[in-house]
């Protein structure tokens, strides 16, 4: 293997307009797309805006769309492309663009604020929480999330329908609700907050049609659809659409 010249198309512009700009740039063994973007900055486009941080797939900053697929630039090896392929890099297409490859992802922070946080169990001081591994392992999977927002970007509910952004929290934050609802020590129900009902009524769980794009693009390999969204849909069905479960809960007054 050796260095070669790769053809890139990189979107440049801002909200007033922009387009794909052609570049030919050197690629070396073992490099990732973010390395190439940095080389472009260093050699050909010093004002190219790109958000990045750890270069290790853990900070979730360098999300972009590479050949039309939402990916982390730092985790996309150049070796997955053929040498004669033109590689297209654009900003995330579900969010407002700021400049070049940088988008305004504040939608996600607004949605994060709408999710009621963990409710500590009464009578247990911080530092005294005790949980069995088997009880907490489901929530731990969701804690792997690096908040790159690739799942939010690819979800067609908001990507293709801007008007749904108000009603729909998106897969990342529905997963957050699942994380809390499955948490063995979350005491939200003691405060009158039913996360299962609010997931459906206030955070738009019903908009999800489980087409699994969020799972496909997750760089952490979290099974968002199978382990968070579908279980939440089933939990919401317990509350809203299953009279047998409702009756059973009324009679036994017992929580699993």
């Amino acid at each position, binding site marked *: 293997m050796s260095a070669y010249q790769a053809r890139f198309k990189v979107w440049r512009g801002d*909200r007033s307009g922009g387009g794909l700009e052609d570049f030919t740039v050197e690629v070396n063994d073992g490099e990732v797309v973010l390395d190439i973007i940095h080389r472009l900055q260093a050699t050909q486009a010093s004002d190219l805006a790109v958000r990045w941080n750890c270069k290790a797939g853990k900070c979730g900053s360098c999300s972009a769309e590479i050949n039309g697929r939402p990916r982390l630039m730092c985790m996309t090896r150049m070796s997955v492309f053929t040498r004669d392929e033109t590689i297209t890099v654009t900003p995330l297409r579900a969010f407002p663009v700021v400049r070049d490859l940088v988008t305004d992802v504040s939608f996600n922070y607004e949605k994060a604020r709408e999710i009621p946080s963990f409710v500590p169990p009464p009578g247990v001081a911080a530092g005294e929480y005790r949980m069995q591994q088997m009880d907490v392992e489901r929530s731990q999977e969701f804690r792997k999330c690096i908040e790159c927002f690739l799942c939010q970007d690819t979800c*067609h509910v908001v990507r293709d329908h801007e008007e749904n952004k108000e009603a729909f929290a998106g897969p990342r934050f529905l997963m957050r609700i699942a994380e809390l609802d499955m948490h063995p020590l979350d005491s939200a129900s003691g405060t009158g907050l039913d996360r299962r009902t609010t997931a459906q009524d206030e955070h738009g769980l*019903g908009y999800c049609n489980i087409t699994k794009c969020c799972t496909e693009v997750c760089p952490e390999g979290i099974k968002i659809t199978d382990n968070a969204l579908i279980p939440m849909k089933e939990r919401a069905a317990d509350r809203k659409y299953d009279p047998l479960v409702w009756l059973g809960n009324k009679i036994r007054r017992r929580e*699993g």
Partner: protein
Amino acid sequence: MATGTEPPQVHKGVHEATRAAIGPRHLRTDRWWLAPALTAAGLLAFIVYSTWRAFANADYYAAPYVSPFYSPCLAENCEPMRSGPNWEIFGSWWGLSPALLILIFPLGFRLTCYYYRKAYYRGFWASPPACAVAEPHKKYSGETRFPLIMQNIHRYFFYAAVPVAGILTYDTVLAFRDEHYEWGHMGLGTLVFLVNIVLIWAYTISCHSCRHIIGGRLRHFSKHPVRYRLWGWVGKLNARHMQLAWASLFSVALADLYVYLVASGAFDDPRLF
């Protein structure tokens, strides 16, 4: 809220004014269309075949085999099957194919299945056709309104699918007879039935609703060790739900086709012993 004085909102999706100005609706360079096209073709083929067979009302029994499309047979106009799944719940007034009475349950189970939903939303409705490929629809309300809000009754179809799978298991046991109803025999059809019933059970048990009912709804697994273990097993199967959905769809059609070929005289069931 929109009022009469405001300009109408135009929904543009990826072409919203605030987003990066990129002309094409997607920039994917791989063959993203292949998976939804194959899915649509596969489902369409099954729909055509099963519709023909369900309405045919013929060639569904060749001793000792009964087609899974016609089992249990709930009408008076069913072919008599010795020790077979004949339950004449519907009287002589039912003049249509008896398959229509029972297929509603497995059909509903698969129609509301979380995997098939993904398959047909992508394959038939292009919502979305593939990830990061813009869908053609101007509006989207997902499963929040009728009729798609009815997808939430999947668990009831799961409850119905369990006894149906039980009856198909009974049919498979009956397949260990020969054409003279003598026990202890096996033909190629018995093997087809065996493979089919294993796949049907695996698909049924791997269902997301089953996973939820078995243990997913619990918050403290440590208080329910047996359900936790069962939930783990179902979870392993659940990870293969898509493969099992296709395999069982193919096997149930194959089992029916086998019975059709034997019953219509086009093929003799080779006896193994």
